[in-house]
């Protein structure tokens, strides 16, 4: 083993892995499954040891243990209790001091900020209007993403758009951040579900060009993998300005993950860090964004919608209004709880605002300016279930992107190690041994199930509300009520308190 303890670099482990010796049959599944070298087998003593230090809490070994001998627990605060100096801060300082660098983390913000979804409740019909039974009556979820004219003009075709059978899409996660099999599973699932996934900023493997009818191709500041054919393959194009998990900075793909295939898709040398610049170096202001939007439209002969993705930041409403007037067909807003494959922890945990408030503010602003119906809005950043999705739609979104929820379907347990490229579940790794762990035949089925079940749940909720089409719920905040929110929060959300 390479590992030995260094007191000058000591950080107490985050997890305790307990293995019940009377249950352990020495099958060594936990040893082979662990990609973080936390478990090893001592042949001489016929015993499996654990290096607690290395455990990331991914629970891969727990899932594999045939006798349920393993339990992974959170380690209680190893430091003296202090209401101001929690373990997060003490370890954070030590980590920075030991290694001389800022910690990088993956997945979304894990700090205990308020979750507004949990303070919003939905409506249902009683007596004066009948609830509608989605098993017996038609219930419509079909959603279009794209520009709409203000009013019906005779003989004029509608601008290009994409049609979703359900208002849920899979948000930008690049090939590179994700393994080939993960992208394959996602592509197959959205094809079956009649919706779309976003390629993320890493280009697209040629083997995934078959998903042409169900992929939104992303153009980000690094322009990784962007070429004419790539733009032509996409059903829509998304310009990524910002990401909820790390507003104001560019993408990070550690060199460890840049394999031969990734280097081809991204058009960068193998093994190099793919760090996209913080801004687009051809977009320093809104008029530049307009030029890029129209450059992409020109390049694709105005055949597909162009989406602009921004992170939810303080003045998001004004920014979105500017984007709506710059020729974008849709605006995608990513809240601060949104996931990432790698981001500086300090940015991930402290920058941006909640999607609920950002979405409400944007929808309200675009309505005040009378242009809301001309663009579509996609909300993302921590959508955990169909209830969050429907609340987002009632607040004003046309559709939502999910990311983390899709990864959970593929096996993810939110251990926040994507950036290491060692994902034990095979989702965010380029290691051929590990990435085999995602079986596209099974995982695409699971993901398709998730789309199906969420759609059914959306229909059930709509039926209970007495509406049979999603557009009657979109922006219909009267179907929401707030609990435990301040007057100001309610005002921003445009929602009445429960009881009123």
């Amino acid at each position, binding site marked *: 083993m390479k590992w030995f303890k260094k007191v000058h670099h000591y950080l107490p482990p985050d997890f305790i892995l307990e293995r019940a010796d009377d249950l352990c049959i020495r099958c060594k599944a936990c040893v082979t499954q662990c990609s973080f070298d936390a478990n090893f087998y001592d042949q001489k003593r016929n015993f499996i040891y654990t290096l607690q230090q290395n455990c990331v809490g991914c629970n891969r070994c727990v899932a594999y243990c045939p006798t349920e001998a393993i339990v992974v627990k959170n380690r209680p605060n190893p430091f003296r209790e202090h209401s101001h100096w929690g373990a997060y801060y003490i370890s954070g300082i030590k980590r920075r001091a030991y290694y001389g660098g800022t910690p990088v983390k993956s997945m979304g913000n894990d700090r205990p900020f308020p979750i507004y979804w949990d303070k919003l409740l939905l409506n249902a019909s009683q007596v004066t209007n009948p609830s509608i039974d989605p098993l017996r009556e038609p219930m419509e979820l079909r959603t279009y993403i794209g520009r709409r004219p203000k*009013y019906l003009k005779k003989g004029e075709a509608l601008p290009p758009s994409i049609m979703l059978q359900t208002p849920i899409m899979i948000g930008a996660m690049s090939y590179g951040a994700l393994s080939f099999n993960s992208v394959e599973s996602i592509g197959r699932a959205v094809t079956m579900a009649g919706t779309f996934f976003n390629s993320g900023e890493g280009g697209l493997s040629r083997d995934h060009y078959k998903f042409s009818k169900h992929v939104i191709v992303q153009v980000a500041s690094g322009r990784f993998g962007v070429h004419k054919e790539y733009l032509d393959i996409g059903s829509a194009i998304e310009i990524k300005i910002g990401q909820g998990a790390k507003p104001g900075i560019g993408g990070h793909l550690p060199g460890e993950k840049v394999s031969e295939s990734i280097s081809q898709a991204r058009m960068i040398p193998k093994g190099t860090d793919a760090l996209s610049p913080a801004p687009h170096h051809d977009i320093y202001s809104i008029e530049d964004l307009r030029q890029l939007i129209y450059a992409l439209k020109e390049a694709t002969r105005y055949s597909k919608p162009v989406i602009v993705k921004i992170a939810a930041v303080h003045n998001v409403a004004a920014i979105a209004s500017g984007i709506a007037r710059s020729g974008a067909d849709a605006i995608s807003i990513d809240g601060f709880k949104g996931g990432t494959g790698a981001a500086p922890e300090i940015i991930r945990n402290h920058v941006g605002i909640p999607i609920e408030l950002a979405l409400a503010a944007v929808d309200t602003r675009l309505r005040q300016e009378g242009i809301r119906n001309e663009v579509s809005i996609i909300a993302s950043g921590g959508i955990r279930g169909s209830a969050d999705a429907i609340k987002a739609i009632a607040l004003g979104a046309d559709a939502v992107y999910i990311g983390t929820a899709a990864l959970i379907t593929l096996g993810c347990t939110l251990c926040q190690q994507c950036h290491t490229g060692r994902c034990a579940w095979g989702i965010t790794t380029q290691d051929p041994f590990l990435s085999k762990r995602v079986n596209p035949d099974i995982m695409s089925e699971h993901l398709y199930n998730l789309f199906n079940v969420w759609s059914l749940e959306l229909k059930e909720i709509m039926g209970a509300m007495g509406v049979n089409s999603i557009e009657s719920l979109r922006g*219909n905040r009267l179907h929401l009520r707030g609990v435990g929110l301040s007057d100001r929060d309610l005002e921003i959300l445009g929602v009445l308190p429960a009881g009123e």
Partner: protein
Amino acid sequence: MFINVSNNLPRDISGCGISGFINTNGRRSSGRACVDSICMMRDRGNGLGAGFAVYGAYPEFRNYYAIHIIYQDNKAREETEEYLSTKLSIVQRGGIPTKKTKNIQSRPLFFVYFGKPRAQSDVAEIDEFREDQEDEFIVRLAMKINENIKGAYVISSGKNLGVFKGIGFPEDIAEMFMIDDYKGYCWIAHNRYPTNTPGWWGGAHPFSVLDWSVVHNGEISSYGINKRYLEMFKYNLNLKTDTEVISYLLDLLVRRHGLSLKEAALAFAPPFWTQIEKMNTDQKNKIEKIRRIYGSAMLNGPFAILVGFKGGLMGLSDRIKLRPLVVGQKGDTTYMASEESAIVGVVKELDRIWSPNAGEPVIAKLKPAVSARLFGKSNKTVRV
């Protein structure tokens, strides 16, 4: 009795009975038949609201907007009249005739003003109303009064059209306003069954703006988004009743956006996507366009409505028909009502009586010669 409407209720919901008829030859008849018809469905109301709209009520003033206003008190009246005098050149004004009835104890003041927008001279006014079209001017005027003057509500503002409504059973309201004495070629009536508010005079049906008047049975579950959609086009919704959105949506879609009435009906109660998929390409494209552009104008939830418009009468139910609607025909008169009883109870030996399909608009239009006589050749009626 006036109820304070600033009670934070986002809207009022109610069940109801509706009834109406039109003579396509423009022959005017007294309100008796309409009153009898709506009273056949007494169980569909609970005494907390009823009303009538009559087209052809004021032939001698048919070129002037007939603005009906209800006032809480004289102060509201004085304030409104002062405002009106700066905006309108009024040719005739007065209290709407009423008589005392046993069942209606307290009531607001009713006034009618016949006038046209004043030629605007000073800068301030031009700023206030940028639109130079007369119809637009009247819509804005009505909304300004509803919004800004406490205790004053414009309840109708069309030409040759009067709306009479209030709290009570239809027979009481009819007696109070002496509905029998009015004559019209098209009548619509409403009997209200509110569930969650005591009802207030301004909240009774019909709802009217310009030549549109709407009576409605049902609940618009999409009200929240319909309202926010209208607000983008500067409609202010002050009457706290979901029916209000229907009259404004008609005004927006048909008058301002130039849709035909049938296209507006498609926006309100569109076919399902599964049905659209089966249509021929032209039809499919057209309806898909309407659904995509006017998704926020779709009326979702149970409803049956009668819409009086310039030159005709339309009946429409929601797309899964959660509220009843029956249509009858005899000679040149078309009847529409919630229940068959309301038609067969007042007219014998109908030529035809049927229940229209869910979401299928039934439109009865004045004959072209009659329209020309009533509105003049240059004055266009609503495109059907």
